[in-house]
């Protein structure tokens, strides 16, 4: 790296960090392609983009942590008023922690799992010798208190796995601010957290900002940064495509990509429309097969349900993971299940699939028994209830091609099978040649399409979707949600849609179950539950959802 002369430009103390035309490449592949950004004292700058946009690498490069094998170039690069292009490893080390603190996603892995959290915070104090040895323990407790960790004496002696996700993230922030840096770089600081905890952590970061600390916030979620950012940079494929005051970018996005990102966020407003285009979605037609098989009555409790559970209980050890849950699912409808981690959503999904039998209560499928059956009797019914899970790759036999995977649930003569597989692939928007490929060669969105095609193969009455879009970028998520809505309209499939994301559930669900600690705390029409939540927990949940400012339609 050579240090170009910056000329007579005074080392602007008005900016903490400033970089011009930053380029970072790994083994000849450029992942950051000419990014310019600056952060002034007390300012909050947000960098938003999807995976592969280069936002994380950009943020880490500002601390000299681009990673092994990274090649960093820039037209100008000032950190703390000094030319960072001339920095050696020692220069970087003195800045890290002291000048800027780093907060990463999920503190369970971002804090050393084998050491106490107190030791982790004290390490910053020792490295930069900001607190003499004797005062360190007391300072650690002060810091823990400052980030709102209750019982700091106890917590300081614990290890990350003994703390909840929210407390861990607070500890990580405490370690980032320990040496009192003027800048916090937070890379997806709330991504793995439940929505109520996310709101708390955002409030904590906002409080630091109010106290005068500058913030560089990296996120994939425009709504998360909306409440706190002064300026927003939108990145795509290693470039900044849009930059401006937060209010302007959110209210009047100038770039097509920003517009499509904003439109792709599912919410109440997007109900009944395609997230990708904004067009209205087709309404579900009543399922013809089912209309013949069952009575015409479709009211709740009248026997018109495809799947209905009552008084379901399931425990792991002494803990009731699902506790007295009842639900009903009518043909062609979507039942959303929302709740935070540990609320029992996934166990409910496994009960609905009869992969687990409930200890009490029962589930009926089209009026007939579904749980409590002998597996031999249940087997012929199984194709009627299919599963789409969060991680499609895990649900595919690693040896098989897409064609073989999609063909697996089909009960067809060999000759017809191939035609049906191609038909299904076409239906989910994949070209026929996908059949010969292995899922690991596909993108996340394509894999989820394969999973949907496979689940649709047996023409199920019920599709259980367990966090089907949680691992996807917002634009890909939009495509997959649109696809699910289309196939539902076309086949009249009923869906149990499980998600931690209230926006997604609001977008797709007709009715909603809100779960907490294994129990259903609220149930009703989606519009009703989200607009006028009755249970305090639902209210807290709805209030905690980060929101985009309303835009002109």
């Amino acid at each position, binding site marked *: 790296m050579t240090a170009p002369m910056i000329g007579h430009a005074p080392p602007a103390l008005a900016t903490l960090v400033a970089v011009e035309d930053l380029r970072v490449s790994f083994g000849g592949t450029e992942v950051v392609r000419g990014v310019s950004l600056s952060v002034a004292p007390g300012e909050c700058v947000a960098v938003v983009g999807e995976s592969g946009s280069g936002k994380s690498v950009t943020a880490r490069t500002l601390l000299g942590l681009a990673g092994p094998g990274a090649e960093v170039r820039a037209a100008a690069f000032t950190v703390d008023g000094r030319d960072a292009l001339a920095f050696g490893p020692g220069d970087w080390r003195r800045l890290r922690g002291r000048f800027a603190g780093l907060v990463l996603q999920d503190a369970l892995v971002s804090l050393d799992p*084998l050491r106490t959290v107190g030791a982790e915070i004290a390490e910053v104090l020792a490295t930069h010798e900001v607190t003499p040895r004797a005062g360190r323990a007391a300072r650690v407790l002060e810091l823990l208190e400052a980030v709102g960790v209750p019982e700091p004496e106890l917590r300081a002696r614990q290890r990350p796995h003994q703390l909840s996700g929210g407390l861990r993230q607070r500890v990580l922030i405490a370690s980032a601010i320990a040496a009192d840096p003027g800048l916090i770089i937070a890379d997806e600081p709330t991504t793995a957290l439940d929505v109520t905890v996310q709101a708390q952590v955002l409030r904590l970061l906002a409080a630091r900002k109010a106290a005068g600390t500058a913030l560089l916030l990296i996120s994939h979620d425009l709504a998360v940064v909306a409440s706190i950012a002064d300026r927003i940079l939108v990145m795509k494929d290693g470039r900044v495509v849009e930059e401006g005051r937060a209010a302007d970018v959110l209210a009047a996005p100038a770039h097509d990509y920003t517009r499509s990102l904003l439109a792709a966020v599912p919410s109440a407003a997007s109900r009944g429309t395609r997230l990708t285009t904004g067009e209205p979605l087709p309404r579900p037609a009543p399922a013809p097969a089912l209309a013949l098989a069952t009575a015409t009555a479709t009211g709740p409790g009248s026997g018109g349900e495809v799947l209905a559970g009552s008084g379901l209980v399931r425990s792991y050890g002494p803990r009731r993971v699902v506790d007295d849950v009842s639900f009903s699912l009518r043909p062609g409808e979507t039942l959303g299940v929302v709740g935070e981690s540990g609320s029992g959503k996934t166990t409910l999904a496994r009960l609905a699939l009869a992969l687990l039998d409930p200890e009490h209560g029962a589930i009926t499928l089209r009026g007939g028994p579904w749980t409590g059956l002998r597996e031999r009797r249940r087997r012929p019914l199984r194709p009627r209830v299919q599963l789409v899970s969060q991680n499609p790759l895990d649900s595919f036999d690693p040896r098989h091609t897409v064609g073989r995977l999609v063909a697996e649930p089909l009960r067809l003569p060999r000759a017809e099978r191939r035609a049906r597989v191609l038909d299904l692939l076409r239906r989910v928007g994949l070209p026929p040649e996908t059949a010969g490929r292995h899922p690991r060669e596909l993108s996340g969105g394509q894999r989820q399409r394969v999973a949907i095609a496979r689940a649709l193969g047996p023409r199920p009455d019920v599709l259980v979707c367990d966090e089907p879009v949680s691992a996807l970028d917002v634009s890909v998520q939009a495509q997959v949600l649109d696809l699910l809505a289309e196939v539902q309209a076309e086949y009249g499939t009923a869906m149990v849609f499980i998600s931690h994301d209230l926006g997604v559930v609001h977008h797709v669900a007709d009715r909603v179950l809100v779960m907490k600690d294994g129990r259903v705390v609220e149930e009703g029409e989606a519009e009703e539950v989200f607009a006028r939540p009755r249970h305090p927990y639902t209210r807290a949940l709805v209030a905690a959802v980060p929101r985009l400012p309303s835009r002109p339609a």
Partner: protein
Amino acid sequence: MIKRLATGAGVLWAAATAAYLALLLAPGDTVDILVGEGPDTPEIRAGIIAEWGLDRPAPVQYLSYLWRLLHGDLGRSYQLQRGVGEILATQVGPTAQLTLAAAGTGVLLAGAIAVVTAGRGRWWRGVAAAAELVSVSVPPFLIGIVLLSVFSFTLGWFPVSGAEGARALVLPALALGLPLAGVLGQVLRGGLERALEQPFAVTARARGLTERALVVRHALRHALIPAVTLAGWFTGTLLGGAVITEVLFGRPGLGQVAMQAVTGRDLPVVMAVVLLSAVVYVTISTLLDLAYRVIDPRIRG
């Protein structure tokens, strides 16, 4: 903890039983086998039958065998005309010396190489990886032969055989310790490199830590976890390798005893050596299990 001890006792019991079954199932008359190549007189035969209770029903034989073991009575070698316990007792010392020295050599070498090369450039790591590959691929006796021909025959720095003094221990300990260092080095280096790629390493660097401090304070502990789980393998390698090393370097010890017993088909001695190694194994793996809990506090919760 109590569960751990119970498991250990169970394993020992099963090992004793297995050795006993092997003796019973061995082709040929049990008395013939026990006599082996030792003197064969009707009196000795009668003694064997009495000691092993061969004239009594099988369950009684088995129980009395276990009973004797419980009292530390390992039986008699009819070839050497001495108690097995007595034979082993005189030979434990040199073998303990050798294996401990080898274990120390292996651990120190592996640790030093891993700490120095982890996170270094590709060239360094390549050299370390190649050295490790070769050291685990060379049969232990070949390492011994090479060491002997270079340092004893050619340079004359160390004695060719025997167990007199510390100088005589150097080459055998190296021969036995090098393969250990190779495997342990691979495991440690792999563990260090994985740890250094973890998000917590990024966080630690972001606090301003030097790479050395990161390796010593954070990564090394993570790298120890897989190394400790291989402890059983290490113990086995050392005990088994001791046989070959002692034969090659002409050192007295349990390995020599075992070899002579196998060659002479002196089964009581072979069985005792096997049981002794099972005891050592169980003891060491119990101790390391405790160490594991100290290194990784997560498994306590």
